[in-house]
């Protein structure tokens, strides 16, 4: 009885959070005005991650971050005069704007799409040595690897305990980032607290998802491939629900926005990225401790090995699976919060990163939590270090190619066991 009441309460809290949060979100506002857009390039290469913001007298403000090709766009509500500012702190190392043009543009935008140019300067670009670049990329790669690892642990544990290849795992990550945005920007809760609330929200949602959907399917004896297809449907559904309420723009958290990087030796890193990295490491260590030392963690490994035997030896398999779901959802939400801090929040971020998470999990070995950790770190490093040789826009391609190559040489992954391969 108590458990049921608690579950009901949790569901209520989650529902309220969702209604309060999403009802107040900015996306519902119709964006039918002109679109400001442009491409930031340097030596014909698109610059990724450059932040551009636009505002007008009547209180509109929007921002965008350039994608891998250097393209950005900001949708405005109506025609008028907009001041567009490029955040020079977000330009990559060694790139500056052309000296005489400045970082601010005032434009009269009326209809359709208005291109705004920010030329980068000639000769301002100083080339850093390959070694210095490699050190910087290693640090960036480890940070990405940690984000991937956080998402991968849950994916891998859920796969291990239930056999479900969860294609809706990315949406847990998106939900983490989106709910942090809602708490931080709309309810004005400080970021750290907002992130904590977001983790709780996602933990509750993860538990509900398992109880309402997956547990029922397991009871019905739904096949694994059928469940995989169900997770694809759920993923599509959740993605477009998020888009519906949240809108298509990439947005930044209100706190610690546009923080300048500090130089440590050869490496430039923002304080928030550093804190994020430490939080991620702590979370992963806690998770490892949980798996190795606690009763529940051991039980979860027992269920992964052999559910029937685990059940026979007195382990409450359904409860273990529910805890695994809660843990997985929380870790994924944390990954979303961290990714949102560095890359901004959008409705598509989880699905975008899901393939890389899969790559990490598969390289490490499907269904092994430790393999997932190592595989994710490797994939993160590989993606960033590959930019030494391939254009940044193609960096994910390298990781996915490696995934395929690993499957040829060692299909069970680095730490996987042969019998899982089939």
């Amino acid at each position, binding site marked *: 009885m108590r458990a049921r009441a608690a579950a009901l309460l949790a569901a209520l809290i989650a529902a309220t959070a969702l209604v309060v949060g999403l009802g107040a979100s900015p996306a519902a506002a*119709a*964006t*039918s005005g002109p679109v400001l857009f442009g491409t930031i390039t340097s030596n*014909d*290469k*698109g610059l990724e991650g450059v932040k551009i913001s636009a505002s007008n007298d009547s209180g509109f403000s929007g921002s965008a971050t350039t994608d891998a*090709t250097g*393209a950005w766009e900001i949708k405005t509500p109506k025609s008028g005069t907009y001041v567009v500012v490029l955040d020079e702190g977000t330009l990559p190392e060694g790139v500056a704007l052309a000296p005489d043009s400045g970082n601010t543009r005032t434009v009269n935008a009326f209809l359709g799409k208005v291109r705004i140019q920010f030329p980068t300067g000639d000769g301002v670009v100083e080339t850093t040595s390959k070694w210095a670049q490699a050190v910087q990329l290693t640090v960036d790669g480890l940070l990405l690897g940690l984000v991937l690892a956080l998402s991968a642990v849950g994916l891998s544990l859920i796969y291990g305990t239930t*056999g479900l*290849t969860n294609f809706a795992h990315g949406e847990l990550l998106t939900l983490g980032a989106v709910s942090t945005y809602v708490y931080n920007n709309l309810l004005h809760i400080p970021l750290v607290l907002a992130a904590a609330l977001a983790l709780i929200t996602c933990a509750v949602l993860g538990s509900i998802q398992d109880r309402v959907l997956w547990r029922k*399917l397991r009871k019905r004896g*739904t*096949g*694994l*491939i*059928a469940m*995989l*297809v*169900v997770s*694809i*449907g*759920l*993923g*599509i*559904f*959740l*993605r*477009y*629900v998020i*888009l*519906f309420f949240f809108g298509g723009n990439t947005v930044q958290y209100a706190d610690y926005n546009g923080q300048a990087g500090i130089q440590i030796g050869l490496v430039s890193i923002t304080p928030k990225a550093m804190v994020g990295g430490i939080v991620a490491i702590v979370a992963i260590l806690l998770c490892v401790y949980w798996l190795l030392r606690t009763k529940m963690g051991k039980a979860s490994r027992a269920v992964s090995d052999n559910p029937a035997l685990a059940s026979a030896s007195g382990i409450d398999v359904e409860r273990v699976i529910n805890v695994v779901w809660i843990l997985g959802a929380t870790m994924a939400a944390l990954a979303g919060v961290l990714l949102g801090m560095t890359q901004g929040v959008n409705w598509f971020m989880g*699905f975008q990163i899901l*393939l890389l998470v*899969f*790559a990490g999990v*598969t390289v490490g070995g*499907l269904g092994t939590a430790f393999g997932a950790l190592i595989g994710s770190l490797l994939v993160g490093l590989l993606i960033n270090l590959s930019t030494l040789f391939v*254009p940044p*826009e*193609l960096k*994910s*391609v390298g990781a*996915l*190619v490696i*995934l*395929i*190559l690993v*499957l*040829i040489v060692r*299909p069970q992954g680095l730490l996987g066991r042969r019998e*899982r*391969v*089939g």
Partner: protein
Amino acid sequence: MDWGNIISQTLTQAIGILAIIYCLAAIGLNVHFGYTGLLNFGQAGFLAVAAYGLAVTVSYLGASLWLGVLVGLLGTVVLALLLGLPTLRLRADYLAIVTIAAAEIIRLLVRSVTFREVFGGSDGITRFADEFYALNPFTTGIALGPITFSKNDSWVFVVGWVVVAFWLLVVWSLMRSPWGRVLKGIREDEDAVRSLGKNVYSYKMQALILGGVIGAFGGFISAVYTQSVQPDTFSTDFTFFAYTILILGGAARVFGPVVGALVFWALIVFVGEFLNEAVANGVITFITSTQVGQIRFMLVGLGLMLLMIFRPQGIFGDRKELALDAR
């Protein structure tokens, strides 16, 4: 509310060219998933390779459109071999992850700035199918009651359904043959088939190639229909929609993909047109016209989920003929 327009749009698009493209993709998936039990989540990649093979041959190499078709077909066969070699010996979900990754690799490569010279970046390639329309026997468009097609669309429409009919015939006859029975055997119990002395790996590879080639024709139709290829047409969602269509119609049934495509597009277009009309006329005020598109996608996701849970065999399928357990 203009009901005439809603109904005419729904009927036209339900049998229209988009339905043909998705239908061909789903027939290919039917060979993969329905008959052989292979989880190919990279069907969009096969269509992309075919469409881009065609477009690049014409616009970059300056060769004939028909040579482009050959290049596209060759491309899909090579892709199937590349994907099949590492994964067909492994369990089903490995193939799923690798194929979805491969489709994304292809999309990222063709939309990259690095290869813009060849593939046209995110804008893609346009105007390369004049040779196809030069053969157009239609002097006016088709107009049958509420169903209307323009002159050029009519030509694509007729060719498209002829291609669909051809592949349905091929699939129907192949699946009655000993070869098809081996495929179904692999779906049911791989080890049993292997113990009969069949080379399971080779059969799976043949099925992967055949399904890919059928999908390739969807890519060709999509390329000539709009006279353009764009990378984001071939996103992962495309494959997911094709799966929805296949499961809706009924997997492992020859006509499953056709029925699925007709019903899917009729529903999708009807919901979209209805909501758009309602928004435009102020009947529904709490959503905008952009959000109508998003609601359609939500319904697809929800539909796929509910279908898989409550009626995995779709409209015509047989539950016993479904490969739903990973081995």
